[in-house]
């Protein structure tokens, strides 16, 4: 299955299991979404459960909050995460804090699915990675899968979760794994072990990182598209790197990361989002706190630059294999 199909399958499973699950967003109904992730669901479950919305992200999230308070379990799609900002107040001041401010009386188990990341020549409004923004908001869970198997299992967990979840989907991975080389075609998920996805119900818990490739010379910590870039770069560098997919920014599985870095003594963090106050800063701080005495080299970050995501200079902006490779070499050179 592709990642788009796996996400579709997760929603299919949950629509069948729980009559309180509703799916809505811009173009998700008849059309099945601009990335085809909700394709066929309206036909199968009816317009009462899978439907289009006005172009009003603030309205989509706010309505979902109200439905959730009244017993439903809405799963909303924001067409691109770049268009989530009209909903910012509803996410940050409302959805995230409802349980807290009402002393546990009210909560709303909304899942917000939204495509993120670049690599499709989408320019500044179809390419951003806002995970740090939401990880910074207390009361929201923020996650990002990097493959079809995790995508389905994590989406089911997110829908079943009684806390609100920002579910970020790296759009460049929807239809195939991508190691960051624009000269090469995307790979095929059906040729990738994580493209094997069971049809029925299963979960991948939120809040667990995964060791994607074991190794004992260096730890590379990343998520989303950059997991695939890191695997390719480490292979090319000929370094026995342990590559960890964070998967969940909040809650963060620091134990898995710390165990690896303590063992290897070297750590590289990679993400596509801008650098300053990016999620890598949090990772670096926590890893340093847990592993300071084991570190043989400073923790490095390879990230997007601190500029809006450009259109023409996409591949100079994207933290691709070359930059990851250079960082690996720098870290390994330190005696």
């Amino acid at each position, binding site marked *: 299955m592709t990642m788009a199909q796996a996400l579709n399958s997760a929603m299919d499973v949950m629509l069948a299991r729980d009559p309180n699950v509703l799916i809505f967003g811009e173009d998700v109904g008849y059309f099945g979404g601009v990335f085809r992730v909700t394709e066929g669901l309206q036909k199968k479950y009816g317009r009462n459960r899978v439907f289009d919305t006005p172009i009003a992200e603030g309205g989509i999230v706010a309505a979902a909050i109200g439905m959730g308070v009244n017993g439903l379990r809405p799963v909303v799609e924001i067409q691109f995460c770049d268009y989530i900002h009209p909903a910012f107040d509803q996410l940050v001041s409302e959805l995230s804090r409802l349980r807290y401010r009402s002393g546990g009386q009210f909560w709303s188990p909304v899942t917000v699915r939204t495509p993120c990341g670049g690599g499709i*020549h989408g320019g500044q409004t179809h390419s951003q990675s806002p995970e740090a923004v939401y990880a910074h908001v207390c009361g929201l869970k923020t996650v990002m899968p990097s493959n079809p198997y995790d995508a389905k299992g994590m989406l089911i967990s997110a829908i079943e979760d009684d806390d609100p979840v920002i579910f970020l989907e790296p759009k460049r991975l929807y239809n195939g794994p991508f190691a960051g080389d624009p000269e090469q075609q995307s790979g095929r998920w059906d040729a990738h072990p994580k493209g094997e996805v069971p049809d029925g119900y299963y979960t991948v818990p939120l809040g667990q990182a995964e060791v994607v490739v074991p190794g004992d010379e260096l730890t590379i910590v990343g998520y989303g598209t950059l997991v695939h870039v890191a695997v390719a770069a480490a292979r090319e560098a000929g370094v026995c790197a342990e590559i960890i997919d964070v998967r969940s920014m909040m809650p963060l599985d620091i134990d898995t990361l710390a165990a690896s870095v303590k063992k290897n003594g070297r750590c590289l963090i990679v993400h596509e989002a801008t650098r300053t106050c990016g999620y890598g800063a949090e990772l670096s701080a926590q890893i340093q706190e847990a592993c300071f005495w084991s570190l043989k080299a400073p923790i490095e970050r390879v990230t997007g630059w601190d500029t809006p995501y450009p259109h023409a200079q996409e591949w100079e902006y994207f933290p691709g294999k070359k930059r990851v490779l250079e960082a690996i070499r720098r870290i390994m050179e330190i005696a």
Partner: protein
Amino acid sequence: MNPLTGKLHIPDAPFRPGQHADYSKVTLPAAGELERPDVLVEERLIRHMPYSMIRVLDTEHRAVGPWNPNLDVETLRQGLRFMLLTRAYDDRMMRAQRQGKLTFYVKSTGEEGFTVAQCLALRPGDMLFTTYRQPAAAIARGAPLVDMMCQCLSNSRDNLRGRQVPTLYSFKEVNFFSISGNVGTQFPQAVGWAMASNYKGEDHIASAWVGEGASAEGDFHYAMTFASVYEAPVILNIVNNQWAISTFQDFAGGEHCPFAARALGYGMPGLRVDGNDFLAVYAATQWAAGRARAGKGATLIELYTYRAESHSSSDDATRYRPVDDWQNWPLGDPILRLKQHLIDLGEWTEERHLALEAELKQAVMDAWQEAVSYGTLEEGPRPPVAAMFEHVYKELPPHLIKQRRQLGVEP
């Protein structure tokens, strides 16, 4: 008995693939039917207007009724020329997209008319806050075709330095505001621009457009509130082209009330106009501009039209609507309607039309040859990589100087 049904009311499109494009529910008043109130009329006296429609060109292509702007022939021909040029430009650019020269493109086919008419009815000093579906505005304001193409190509001559996807133009020199990818944001910004114009004692007004789909955003309502409260000299236009990607206008609220009628809640005049009728749009815009310049504040205009083609190069409209929908659209093609009107006036012929089409097609071809000589995104030359770091701030801060060095692209 419980009156609630256990089912949500979910609007549906009037037709889908395989069905006939049935417009029997579209009720249109005849051309010339609606009266034209004085520009300074009190808003409470014209509250029926958004429920009707301003139309000038009748079925025989004559200009009829009080909204006839009685334009001179030169203006009509100029309008036709800009519309045809826009269509030729769109066709060329979409072909270039299909050939892999552009990453993306948005056509405006069927919607050239209202934009051209409005730009001609406004003054050069008036500020335009357009959507991505209005290349006609840049063209009518005189932005060079080559410059527009270079933006779409992200090449070495791109005036936006490769930062934007194709069609998100910016031409400050002709008072054409930078287009945003986030729909709706320009609407309240235009109101602020107009407030500043008033504050400075200038008689420039602003005109902003938003799709009917995007009119569901909060930004639309911010614009209406601010324009109403401060009586800002602005024209706020909703382009009702019936579709927002796959979603019919009913999902933006069109099922229960014309978009123009939203003005009523703000005490603002609301005009609903046949968007494919060059003369009607010109007249309505002239009315709203005159009112704004006279200090009577904003007008909301609904431009009733049809999106003839797919949403963009990334979309395939045949997946969600019939193939013959535009052919059957009761308000026709704005170009053919103006052409026919000019022919009926005895001021135009089929031969001249064909000759003009050929001339403009050639002009577009020539511009294209020149534009690609400055490079394409694929093959270059492109804007310098270092340009990525410029304009984030007025001056390059130390951390960006450092990042630029790390990338190894000193200017």
